[in-house]
């Protein structure tokens, strides 16, 4: 990726604020009165047992779901009903729990697709594939190649992603999200189904993205070791409610969190 021009990370300023968000599907309450914030430059983990509403929370943040109540403020702007492409324009990138790559396209094209919003040349030049269209193509290719180097996926540059093993697919998906140059990166279980080595690699990438480029990261993960090592602050959900919020150490000692994960004696 491009050499960072000395990113000014001011941790503490809220980039995203979730206030009293509730989400209902008919009678099912996926989220109930959840509030937390994500500060600029931090790695924020969202954890909780299965079905706690973590993915629903991410879906609310990038506009797939619209909260039934409450509001979400991103970069000081509150939107009642944000659509996904508006979230993308605002600078929210995302990876999915089940890899959501463009299977028929090569690694290169997948990451290039992530540059979509940065490309401007019009229909006419695209038809001719000349002038501005070609200049733009080369310019963004350079950026994409930096990401490919960063993620060490040079060898699969021209392989259709449908043929790649799972671990590499996850990596390509991260690359595609990075190509958007997001301010806030939402990672939904980036290490699910990976072996130890792949997890270590992925952790390294996440930390590098956060530290070198100052990208704010919200992370859903089940591997507690990873969560405790990577994140600055953790929010814990259970049955759609927030039960704890704080640094990893605080959360680890919280009795309600321990109960949620280990169960309570009746």
């Amino acid at each position, binding site marked *: 990726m491009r050499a960072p021009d000395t990113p000014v990370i001011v941790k503490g300023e809220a980039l995203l604020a979730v206030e009293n968000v509730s989400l209902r599907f008919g009678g099912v309450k996926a989220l109930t009165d959840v509030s937390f914030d994500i500060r600029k430059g931090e790695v924020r983990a969202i954890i909780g047992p299965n079905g706690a509403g973590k993915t629903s929370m991410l879906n609310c943040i990038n506009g*797939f779901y619209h909260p039934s109540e409450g509001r979400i403020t991103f970069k000081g702007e509150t939107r009642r009903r944000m659509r996904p492409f508006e979230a993308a324009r605002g600078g929210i990138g995302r990876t999915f729990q089940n890899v959501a790559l*463009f299977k028929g396209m090569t690694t290169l094209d997948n990451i290039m697709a992530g540059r979509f919003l940065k490309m401007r040349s019009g229909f006419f030049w695209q038809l001719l594939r000349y002038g501005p269209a070609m200049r733009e193509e080369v310019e963004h290719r350079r950026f994409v*190649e930096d990401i490919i180097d960063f993620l060490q996926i040079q060898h699969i540059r021209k392989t259709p992603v449908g043929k790649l093993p799972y671990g590499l697919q996850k990596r390509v998906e991260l690359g595609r999200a990075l190509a958007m140059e997001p301010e806030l990166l939402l990672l939904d279980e980036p290490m699910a189904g990976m072996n130890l080595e792949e997890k270590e690699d992925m952790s390294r990438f996440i930390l590098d993205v956060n530290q070198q480029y100052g990208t704010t990261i919200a992370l859903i993960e089940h591997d507690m070791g990873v969560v405790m090592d990577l994140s600055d602050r953790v929010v814990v959900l259970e049955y759609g409610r927030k039960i704890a919020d704080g640094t990893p150490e605080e959360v680890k000692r919280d009795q309600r969190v321990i109960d949620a994960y280990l169960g309570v004696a009746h």
Partner: protein
Amino acid sequence: MFYRDAGQYKSSYAADRAVFPLREDRIGLAVILLVAFVAIPLFAGDFVIKTVMMPFLVFSLAAIGLNILTGYTGLISLGTAGFMGVGAYACYKLTTYFPGVNIIVWILASGFFSAAVGVLFGLPSLRIKGFYLAVATLAAQFFLQWCFIRIPWLYNYNTSGAIEVPTRTLFGVPITGATAAIEVRYLILLSAVVLMTWLASNLVHGRFGRMWMAVRDMDIAAELMGIRLLHTKLLAFAVSSFYAGVAGALLVFIWLGGAEAGDVFAIRQSFLILFMIIIGGLGSLVGSFMGAAFISALPTILKFGLPAMGIPIAGATAEHLNFMVIGALIIFFLIVEPHGLARLWQIAKQKLRIWPFPY
């Protein structure tokens, strides 16, 4: 041996992004173009040009149009023949009202009319997908076909109920109508197809192609990249119908020189074009040509080629044999390679590249 990428280094990203990165491919393309532009008009007889080459080119163009919609964007359409018809009738009306403007301008301009109609019928595609969208486009097909028969204004109240192609000239040489030489018509058609294929290839290799394929492969993720689904799908409908419309205008004005709507723009034709891209290869421009050759030219070759080679079969027998052979070949190809002839071609090239080694 003669098809290798060894030694062909790319020193710029522009060269790496080229549509034909291999020298052998470029030479092959040049040879094909040379044969098509020079050898065929010189040496092939009128019959071959008229019954083999011209339908092949017209349907290739229509197949490219449908491939942009179905193969690249993942939206099934059964209205291709209807959109072709819009192009043909639009061209007819335009050249009737403005006979002074060159017919080639109107053939290309008629694409905009079918693009507009295509966008209109593409509107439901945001909400419905797959078979349901196919049925919605089927409505377009029936409605348009009804228009072609029931609105006499479209065919200038001709008693035949068909388009009667007037004679139009280019630099004094007649290119449409009864007096136009077949070679001239062929060269016009070929030029239009080559030009539009080049433009389509540029489009699908760039930003818009990636946008379409992203929506095809995973629309949720595409939306997160900032791609607006409705815009993307409507653009695909517009470009696809544009190609179909131009193909339709070329079909009537250059190839057939007069056509009854009931025949050439019927639902059967829509299906045939869909089969062309399925057999040729979804999401492949080369596949569009292969599919068109397979479905449109092969029957003719079988029908007239076998007697020509000295195998005596009667007309009716040839017809039946034709159906059987084509049917068997379709099944064979779908079993051997469900991704179409284009994939077979790709595999063959890959094998050739590393030959004689297996990998």
